[in-house]
């Protein structure tokens, strides 16, 4: 448990709480969008490079392949579970339920990064290929969600022609996928020696930059919560809290089946539990404009993200230890 404490008292989380507190107190403080976009690009390049370099160290095993596959499957299936739960427990309509489901099938790279730090702090290793898993889990959920949203309703395919291409590019070539996968490839190709000269920037500064970014995330999460919570019924907020635990347990089962080491298991669980708030919303504004951002954004950014970053991650690490012993 003192792992949990030390995680909660790490500067990263403290800065997140600072931001969240300031937002809830309605401070006008903001981080310019252009700046935080640049910072998040840095984070994705750094995490991608790290993963690629580590993957370059040892060949692709079938285990690795299985984890990648597991990630894709999770991203495809979690939305189904989420959708059913939402339809039965909340008053959300088909489209909004499908939209929310997409977010929980996809991932939050910042949550993932916070988890890697926590795993490190707890003294465990984690494989570089988990970054690849993260990248692979971003998009399948969107496809499931679009299917769920049209299901039954003889609605015209939402998008066609130029729209189609626009959407496909947004889904498969959005900034985070390109940066993650691209940096992963660069790290893989350049390897340890090739990336030595750029490590001071991408590794040395990583935790520090993360503090700055999580301060901003806290501001965003806090504002999202303050502005949006009225739109959410209790059942929906509840979903934002138990769904991560559900997804994590499924991932725990898979980790057990695959016999993943503690670190990898914790990260896979975190990925399953985390909800997207950048890639998926953007894609859904194109594909499901009828879905209300005030619902899915508030839920994933205002409820689930804070939960995962503070309580969730320690729990997942704890479970990962339990199952792997």
């Amino acid at each position, binding site marked *: 448990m003192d792992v949990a404490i030390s995680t909660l008292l790490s500067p990263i989380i403290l800065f997140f709480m600072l931001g969240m507190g300031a937002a809830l107190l309605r401070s006008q403080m*903001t*981080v*310019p*969008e252009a700046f*935080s976009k640049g910072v*998040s690009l840095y984070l994705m390049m750094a995490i991608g490079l790290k993963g690629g370099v580590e993957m370059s160290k040892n060949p692709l095993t079938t285990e690795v392949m299985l984890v990648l596959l597991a990630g894709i499957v999770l991203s495809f299936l979690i939305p189904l579970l989420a959708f059913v739960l939402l339809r039965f427990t909340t008053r959300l309509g088909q489209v909004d339920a499908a939209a929310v489901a997409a977010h929980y099938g996809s991932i939050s790279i910042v949550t993932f990064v916070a988890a890697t730090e926590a795993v490190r702090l707890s003294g465990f290793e984690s494989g570089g290929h988990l970054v690849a898993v993260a990248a692979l889990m971003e998009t399948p959920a969107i496809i499931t969600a679009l299917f769920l949203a049209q299901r039954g309703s003889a609605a015209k395919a939402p998008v066609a022609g*130029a*729209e189609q291409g*626009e959407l496909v590019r947004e889904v498969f070539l959005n900034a985070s996928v390109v940066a993650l996968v691209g940096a992963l490839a660069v790290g893989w190709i350049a390897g340890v020696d090739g990336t030595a000269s750029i490590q001071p920037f991408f590794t040395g500064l990583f935790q520090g930059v993360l503090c700055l970014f999580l301060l*901003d*995330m806290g*501001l*965003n999460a806090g*504002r*999202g919560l303050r*502005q949006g919570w009225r739109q959410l019924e209790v059942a929906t907020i509840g979903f934002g809290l138990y769904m991560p635990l559900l997804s994590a347990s499924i991932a725990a089962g898979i980790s057990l089946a695959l016999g993943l080491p503690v670190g990898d298991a914790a990260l896979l669980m975190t990925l399953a539990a985390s909800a997207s*708030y*950048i*890639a*998926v*919303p*953007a894609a*859904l*504004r*194109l594909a499901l*404009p*009828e879905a209300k*951002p*005030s619902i899915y*954004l508030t839920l994933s*950014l205002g409820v689930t993200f804070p939960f995962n970053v503070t309580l969730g991650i320690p729990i997942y690490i704890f479970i990962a230890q339990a199952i792997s012993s």
Partner: protein
Amino acid sequence: MFTRKRIELIIERMAYKRAGRILEEAGMTGYTVLPALAGFGNGNKWSRDTDISTSTDMVVMISIGDEARVTASLEKIAGLLGNHIGVVSVSTVEVLRPDRF
């Protein structure tokens, strides 16, 4: 001076490319997109610096053209706005180079 129509479209950032295609197809000779900073509508406020998934950002599209083309594009625009939140308004302006629009 020559009379033309000016479309002003307040629409989500994610949708402006679609609006642009509509204007283009309707034969409008050009448009300009301005970023919005904040806004209010339907009782909701938004602000650019507080939405990381800049998906709720609005932009303002300005397009000047002759009445016929403007009317032509408006229908489709209305359709687009059926899905995406946004506001469209049309005003009358005078331009110097009629051939340009």
